[in-house]
């Protein structure tokens, strides 16, 4: 059994909570005591129906205000796959939460209400999905029961969305007409929409091919931790632990260590369970090298003819996540793979209107939830790829050095 991580975007009005409730309920991932607790709360509040959003809105403030503030993670499994849902709030003031949920997702479901069709919010969600390079996008056209299961309505929305999606970088788009409330096209194909020939939503989630989404070409192994047992039996043992970020590593491969540029060969790839023949993302392994080279945390093992940039000038799309705005001249801490450095904000090239995709090059700062293109200069070189090439070696976080809070997420567009 493998694992699929997906993010859902949409608001309560689009039926997102009902959809998640339906997926959890139909896969038996909602338990009796959870359901009873939700029913009790719904009754106390005088709701006309059991509000399934109470299942995911776990914080006191969320339950009181009836809104989703933060990303909630939910889990369910079918005989084919285990699923991790990052349930993210839909409104613009929670853009950072959606960015967070999408950063680890293999697939994203964007919900639209069939009666309303594409709205500003749907465009924003699709854009964020493409910005974060989520490989698979599902547009779920919900509330089909309220438009008489109309093929025409569905195809209109599908067409509008597809033409918008061509402006974005969406590698795989699937559009499914559903009714989350009544369960149409959720688990099995709906008899109400015989004209729809595609898969049910769950069938798609179970079968979508994700194995080739990972970068298996460019070998990238950020050194996370140096293992040196201080024991008499293993006095000379020295190995490099980390999580593979790209490519396939094999014993005997010629490799280069950055930033030093030394080359050597992989002597062995090890785990506590014994040696492994090949290592690929996202395996956590330990690599032994043939030659003794000075290597420490933050270095990168790659192939001599396929290296990331060794760069201090970084251009990136940044999603700003703090109340205090980002502006040129600021100094921040940056964490990229296992490497930490300081970064100076040299330039804000533009701020992007996430609804219209208009670039405002007169902007002087990025506020909370703003996204813009930024140029950074780092104190030490980063070993970086373009984010579109590799999400692990192309993504970074920015940290306020005074408060230690994570204040920004960056996706590298070019590094030199």
């Amino acid at each position, binding site marked *: *059994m*493998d*694992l699929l991580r997906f993010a859902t975007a949409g608001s309560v009005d689009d039926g997102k909570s009902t959809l998640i409730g339906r997926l959890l309920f139909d896969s038996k991932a909602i*338990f*009796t*005591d*959870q359901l009873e*607790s939700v029913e009790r709360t719904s009754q106390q509040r005088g709701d006309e129906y059991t509000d399934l959003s109470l*299942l*995911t809105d*776990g*914080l*006191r*403030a969320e*339950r009181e205000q009836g809104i989703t503030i*933060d990303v*909630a*993670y*939910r*889990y369910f*499994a079918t005989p084919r*796959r*285990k699923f*991790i849902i990052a349930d993210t709030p839909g409104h613009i003031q929670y853009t*950072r939460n959606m*960015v*967070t949920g999408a950063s*680890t997702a293999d697939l994203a479901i964007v919900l639209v209400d069939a009666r309303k069709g594409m709205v500003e919010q749907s465009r924003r969600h699709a854009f964020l999905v493409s910005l974060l390079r989520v490989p698979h996008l599902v547009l779920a056209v919900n509330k089909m029961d309220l438009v008489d299961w109309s093929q025409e309505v569905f195809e209109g929305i599908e067409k509008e969305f597809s033409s918008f999606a061509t402006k974005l970088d969406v590698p795989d788009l699937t559009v499914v007409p559903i009714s989350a409330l009544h369960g149409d096209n959720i688990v099995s194909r709906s008899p109400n929409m015989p004209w729809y020939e595609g898969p049910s939503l769950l069938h798609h989630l179970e079968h979508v091919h994700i*194995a080739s989404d990972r970068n298996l070409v460019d070998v990238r192994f950020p050194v*996370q*931790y140096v*293992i040196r*047992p201080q024991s008499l039996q*293993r006095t000379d*043992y020295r190995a490099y*632990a*980390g*999580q593979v970020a790209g490519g*396939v590593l094999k014993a005997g491969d010629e490799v280069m260590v950055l930033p030093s540029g030394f080359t050597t060969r992989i002597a062995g790839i090890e*785990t*506590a*369970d014994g040696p492994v*023949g090949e290592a690929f993302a*996202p*395996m*956590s392994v*330990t690599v032994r090298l043939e030659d003794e080279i000075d290597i420490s945390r933050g270095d990168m093992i790659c192939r001599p003819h396929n290296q990331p940039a060794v760069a201090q000038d970084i251009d990136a799309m940044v999603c700003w*996540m703090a109340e205090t705005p980002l502006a040129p001249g600021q100094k921040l*801490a940056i*964490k*990229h793979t*296992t490497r930490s450095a300081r970064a100076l904000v040299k330039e804000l090239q533009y701020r992007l209107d996430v609804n219209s995709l208009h670039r405002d090059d007169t902007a002087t700062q990025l506020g909370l939830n703003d996204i813009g293109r930024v140029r950074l200069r780092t104190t030490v070189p980063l070993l970086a790829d373009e984010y579109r090439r590799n*999400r692990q070696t192309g*993504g970074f*976080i920015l*940290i306020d050095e005074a408060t*230690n*809070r*994570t204040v920004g*997420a960056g996706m590298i567009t070019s590094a030199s």
Partner: protein
Amino acid sequence: MTIHEYQLSQLDYLEAEAVHVFREVAAELERPVLLFSGGKDSIVMLRLAEKAFWPAPMPFPVMHVDTGHNFPEVLEFRDRRVAELGVNLVVASVPDAIERGLVAEEPNGSRNRIQTPVLLEAVEKHRFSALFGGARRDEEKARAKERVFSFRDDFGQWDPKNQRPELWNLYNGRIHLGESIRVFPLSNWTELDVWHYIQREEIAVPSIYYAHQREVFERDGMLFANNEFCRPREGETTFVTTVRYRTVGDASLTAAVRSDADTVEKVIEEVAATRLTERGATRGDDRVSEAAMEDRKKEGYF
């Protein structure tokens, strides 16, 4: 693992993620400690920590917040496992703290809440900057919102509305002196994943997790063992039946479930079919209110 497809199984994925988290903490934070109760989640954590640093020993001690309300099987298991691994065990004792006047026994006799100050005192005394805990997001709705690296201020408090965003596999472990990070490597595991992992890795767990005969009585629809911490009240009658424990907590308020599952395979079958969450089925401490867990966590609970 099907290597030719370059796709990890769900257990391999979860293990790789947890191992990454352990190494990240060891690399970035100065004085980590692993909270070890002898419960199944912390036993799995111990195995993962062992794997993360192999062939070197894990570079941190383990700590048990001892409520004094223990199942003897669990305490015995704890000591055996610690001896096998050769790690240091720090015990933060609630009975000792009561004697010293740090905390006072609560009217209902539960030590669930008063273990928090004892934990925080030990953290301060040993200057621990990171605490590994076995909490999972599927356990409880407040936990579903918690980060893998959960920041705590110098009072050990969790501020759910002010959490650090967590993107990709980049964790922010930066803290000021006196602050700490609670780290949850099992965040994305479910109860079923834990049992599948126990099966795959052939990990020993205390015998009370498997079906056995026990003298119990019924209270609030739950089955409590008749032992020194928990006696039947008037009108509650004891009887002997076959039970097992799904969770192991304070022995005065952790309930057993009726079960014939006496092997790991049978436990997996049972957990897969159950319609009650493990906390809902067995934990009196979570039944106080809708937000019981959130409130305790804000005060510095695990």
